[in-house]
């Protein structure tokens, strides 16, 4: 067949060498965070999670109070949170209702409350989004970053269920036939969950001591999680004794850096096409 085409259709003086000089159609590149986000959301959609999104500018109520942060929690401080000046505030600062103070959300967790306020359980949601922290920037910290929040509420969702769901997720994201991801959980504290823990996943390095990701520890810190605090359910208008479930949150920038071996988080927001076009 190919022979026939050659004989019959190509011009006699056709120089086969000339196809080496092709006319490539240039397509663009997705930003690495979009690629990771798409992959991540895809996995959760297959696990029957609904993707919901929320605003980046939030009130103090949704970002802190409703999530059971004590009034004097250090996270509310200027050093961690960007507070937004609003005209009413500058005009009449003292009379401003404290709960209406505006800020740039420091995590995607406000959507837990907002979603629960308007939906009856059971539900499974994930919330991707841009978050902000007022901290000095360096190779692994920037003033903005992306987080993915998860929430699963029903009558009796347990830690055992969380482990199953999250292991499925990590295996879908990082695993392959040679690499079965393992997870481990360590106690931790976040005001909006109880119990609270951190989740580590096994490193991909095969216990090499010079591994730049796990530093020979063989474990990589991946997310904070826990069972939703009854006060949080109550604040969102649910009857706390009837519902139970887990929440988790993870930083996507760090995972992108690990997955794509990007050395400095700030490269993600540099707009440098020499970087973007590698993906």
């Amino acid at each position, binding site marked *: 067949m190919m022979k026939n085409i050659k004989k019959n259709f190509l011009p006699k003086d056709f120089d086969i060498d000339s196809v080496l000089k092709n006319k490539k159609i240039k397509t663009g590149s*997705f930003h690495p965070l979009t690629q990771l986000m798409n992959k991540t959301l895809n996995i959760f959609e297959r696990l029957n999670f609904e993707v919901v999104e929320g605003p980046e500018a939030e009130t103090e109520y949704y970002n802190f109070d409703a999530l059971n942060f004590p009034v004097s929690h250090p996270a509310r401080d200027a050093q961690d949170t960007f507070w*937004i*000046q609003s005209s009413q505030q500058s005009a009449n600062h003292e009379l401003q209702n404290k709960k209406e103070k505006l800020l740039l959300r420091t995590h995607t967790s406000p959507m837990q409350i907002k979603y629960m306020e308007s939906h009856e359980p059971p539900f499974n949601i994930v919330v991707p989004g841009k978050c902000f922290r007022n901290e000095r920037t360096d190779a692994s910290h920037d003033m*903005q970053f992306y987080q993915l929040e998860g929430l699963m509420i029903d009558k009796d969702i347990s830690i055992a269920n969380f*482990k199953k769901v999250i292991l499925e997720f990590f295996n879908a994201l990082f695993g392959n036939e040679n690499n079965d991801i393992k997870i481990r959980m360590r106690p931790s504290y976040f005001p909006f969950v109880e119990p609270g823990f951190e989740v580590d996943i096994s490193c991909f390095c095969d216990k090499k001591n010079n591994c730049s990701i796990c530093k020979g520890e063989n474990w990589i810190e991946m997310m904070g999680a826990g069972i939703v605090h009854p006060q949080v359910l109550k604040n969102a208008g649910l009857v706390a004794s009837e519902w139970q479930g887990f929440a988790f949150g993870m930083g996507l920038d760090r995972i992108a850096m690990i997955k794509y071996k990007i050395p400095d988080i700030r490269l*993600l927001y540099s707009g440098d096409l020499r970087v973007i076009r590698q993906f």
Partner: protein
Amino acid sequence: MLFSYNWLKQYIEYKITPKELANILNMYLFEVEGIEEKNSDYIFNINILSNRADCLSHQGIAREINAILGFQGKIEKITPKKELKNEFTLKTKSGKSEIEIEKGAKCCSFSVISKVKINESPKWLKDYLLSLGQKSINNLVDLSNFVILDSGQPLHIFDFDKLKKGKSNKVKLFIREAKNKEKIKILGGKEYELNKNDLVVADLEGPVDIAGIKGGEEAAISQNTNHILILSANFDAKKIYNTSKKFNLVTDASIIFSHNISAGFSLLGLEQLVNLILKEVGGELEQVFFEEKNKDLLKYREHIIIRLNKISSILGKEINEETFNKAMYYLNIKTKKEKTGIFKVNPPFYREDLNIEEDIIEEVGRLYGYNNISLVTPKIFPKRAELNENLEWRSFISRFLLNQGFDEVYNYSLIEQIASYEIINPLSRKRRFLREDLIHGLIENTKFNQSYFDEFKIFEFGHIFKRESVLIEEEKIGALIFSKKEKITDLLLEIRGILDGLFEAMGFDNEDYVISHKDDILSIKVNEQEIGFLGAVSNQDNGLKKGNISFFEIDIAMLIKYIDYEREFEEPPKFPAIDRDISLFTYHGVKITNILSVIQEIGGKLVEDVNLFDVYQSPDSDKKSLAFHIIYRDKNKTLTDKEVNVLHNKIEKELKKRLKVEIR
């Protein structure tokens, strides 16, 4: 916080290597951030969780290690050392001094000792402090520092003779808010001006200590001191935190008080320090003061009701009574069985973090080990999760742009240029305002990338912030084309073409949107609603070295609102089309849209499509040359040349008449 392995070992009746210790701390308590071998000791850097003020001390961590080892069966029975027993045995001894809490402290107690002999510290004390990076000063100061690190209770020692005496040679101290502009010089000589938000310990004359943070120089102990007053109190956490932050004055004491340490420790700390001083420094106990009722601070806390089935339900693992009781026993939590599966439990005084059933469940889960819980697949939900439409369209749009050669960028939401909303506490001048559009960011990207590329296309999805009566946040798609070669009009046409293509792909028809002038920018309207804008920037502006830019920005929510993606079958045309061109000159800024509407109006249903295929603007007059391609078709029959000619001529005539154009 730093902990000494040798120090902790004193309280643990089990041989455990530093590595094993780090492992059990990590898995059952707190993260160990590092271990350093130093002076034949191992120094652990432990990240104490913010709700566990009871663990900001060696005794605190030792209590936890014993609980974990006990639960694991490695320690048979806890026979705690005296320090871990939380017993207060000091007796009141009356004396001449008194203290009054005006504000800002839950409790306080003190002791006066005379004839102390300040000297060098014993070796054991020096070694402990040295391995934790603290310099030895003298036996008195060192013991006070030791007690903070050991019991977690900060105390302060005053030189009694330097405190102001009142009537009948009595010392009176106050814990109170500072007066406005009141000054204090602290140890080391630095002076601070205080106000009513700061707490102080004052004598009859003025402040002698920034409460809970650092002592003043005036009544500080020196090598010649022989008469001391030891003060132990529990100060208001919020106040200590605020003052410490305001002055950027962080001490071991300020950290502990900021975390809201249990008030009971103030009694235990005083007893420990008094006994250690009498033993290691010597002296005579002159006075001990505490309020009898404060002994209640050491009692077990209010009971919490806990159900075994709730523990099992949250953990997803059956927990039996024996396991539960074992966890409670080793955590020093008292239990009383109410009925089958239901218990009343009382946490010890120092566990102020334990208040609800879930708090106790965490303790059980933590000691049991989260890693010992097996995986259980959740029950299938009765509801199918909805697809997020916004996300689907965003993905559609970005794939479309990607195929047109656009690269995706992410920019900062905070910018340098003045905008409606400002950050009260910005990190830098360059990141002070909330962005109001995406295009400025894309132009900045262009300035950066123009050094490396001659042409490129970029886009970004992102939120912007507008001021109306309240803050309005909207999601936009911004796209930009940059080229060093192309003319600005060509770039504008190209971006317009991309937008048309995108709109068509999303199910808009050409008729569905109009582009109209607004300042130097074209506004994009659908159903008379503005949904975005389109424009260009030439090389003279905006710091572009060479080259031009065209761009558009569209509101995602508005775009999705007007999408009509439902398609219906339409019979393909049965009859042929006939094409004609019109070339013309316009003057006095006649708009192309006006020409198009005349063609549509006169041509009616028989005009299937009109394309503008050539534009030439004379550089020195308002004369413009335009060429249109018109496709005529009748759905019901074959058009004849004659019929088309009549209609085409009529269109030309009307254009001349109405818009004063000149047909070429």
